[in-house]
């Protein structure tokens, strides 16, 4: 995920300082890993260096002085370009589950048992995400991010179900031979 573009997007709402940007990021993307403060400030400095953001001034508000940043016209254009850019569909399978099944077959292990256990772990996580998104009054960002995770876990599950069925067929063929 492009932290610089997400910060640019948050700056579109108006000037803001690093602390506030971190807080709004974590609210908007509740299922994502929270941003580290250091990452926020480093990214803001790079945006300024690249002419995509600039320092608006400082804001003390009774506490320590904070630097306010705002997006530039160049920043707005870059954000529009990035937001419309197609994310490449995953070109290859680099999935730990897939790798473990293959290795298990190669090593004469028990891939079916592994798939059952992995499936149970996926279902447990899907139950947690479903509970999060169906809490009455859950905000849209929470629902959307839970939906995103649920659909990806579901895709894994479908692959696991098909693979488990294929393993059964394979075992039957081997037994019959």
């Amino acid at each position: 995920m492009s932290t610089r573009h997400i910060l640019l997007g948050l700056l579109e709402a108006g000037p803001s300082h690093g602390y506030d940007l971190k807080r709004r990021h974590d609210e908007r993307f509740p299922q994502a890993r929270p941003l580290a403060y250091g990452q926020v400030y480093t990214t803001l400095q790079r945006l300024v260096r690249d002419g995509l953001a600039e320092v608006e001034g400082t804001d003390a508000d009774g506490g320590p002085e904070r630097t306010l940043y705002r997006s530039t016209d160049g920043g707005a254009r870059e954000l529009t370009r990035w937001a419309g850019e197609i994310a490449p569909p995953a070109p290859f399978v680099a999935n730990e589950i897939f790798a473990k099944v293959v290795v298990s077959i190669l090593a004469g292990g028990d891939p079916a048992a592994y798939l059952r256990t992995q499936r149970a772990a996926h279902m447990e996580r899907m139950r947690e995400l479903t509970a999060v998104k169906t809490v009455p009054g859950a905000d849209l960002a929470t629902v959307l991010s839970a939906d995103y995770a649920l659909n990806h876990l579901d895709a894994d599950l479908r692959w696991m179900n098909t693979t488990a069925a294929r393993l059964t067929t394979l075992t039957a063929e081997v037994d019959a031979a």
Partner: protein
Amino acid sequence: MSNQGDSSVPLLAGRDLVKAHGRTEALRGASVELRVGEILAVTGASGSGKSTLLHCLAGIVRPDAGAVTYDGSRLDQLPERRLSELRRSDFGVVFQFGQLIPELTALDNVALPLMLAGAARAEARVRAGAWLERFGVRGQEGLRPGEMSGGQAQRAALARALATGPKVVFADEPTGALDSLASEQVMTSLVHTARESGTAVLLITHDAQVAAYADREVRLSDGTVAPAGVAA
């Protein structure tokens, strides 16, 4: 199936159930338990015996072997008349296609089981309206099932299944004909209402995202309960 350390007596249990359709054995020794107020998903591939299991547990068909126990009594040994009464008083059923009566409005579809349970028509219609509202079917009380969207008709079917205060709702692929948003609305309505009223739900589905609304999952494979994987 593991009882997960819960020593409470299950509300509904099938033990070593066997059921054949002709030469095909749909169930080959399946055992499952449903506790009071629990939402249990039964999943599995097509032909794994999910619907046959539901039919046996709901007393719609009798197993060839094994036992079905409901509230401490053998359901599979009840005479047909008593079984029929029990299904009406304690069970609600929803199928993939809601099976609402096409000639009746949504309101009258929900009022019907209430009237069969002894309510006067006017009272039944008031209560039916409240149930439809609870399931988010507003302003459509006067429509017939064919005039409603699939999601709205299915929510009306759920309202009908829950209106009589059943202890168990059997739902066989209740979202099977719906798109993902309508499916979510139906499942949210079902789960919230079941939790509020303490109704147990036996939910048959092939969809993991639907199964994720349940407290627990039992997976069928070739007519038996597949060994459970234990999440780390």
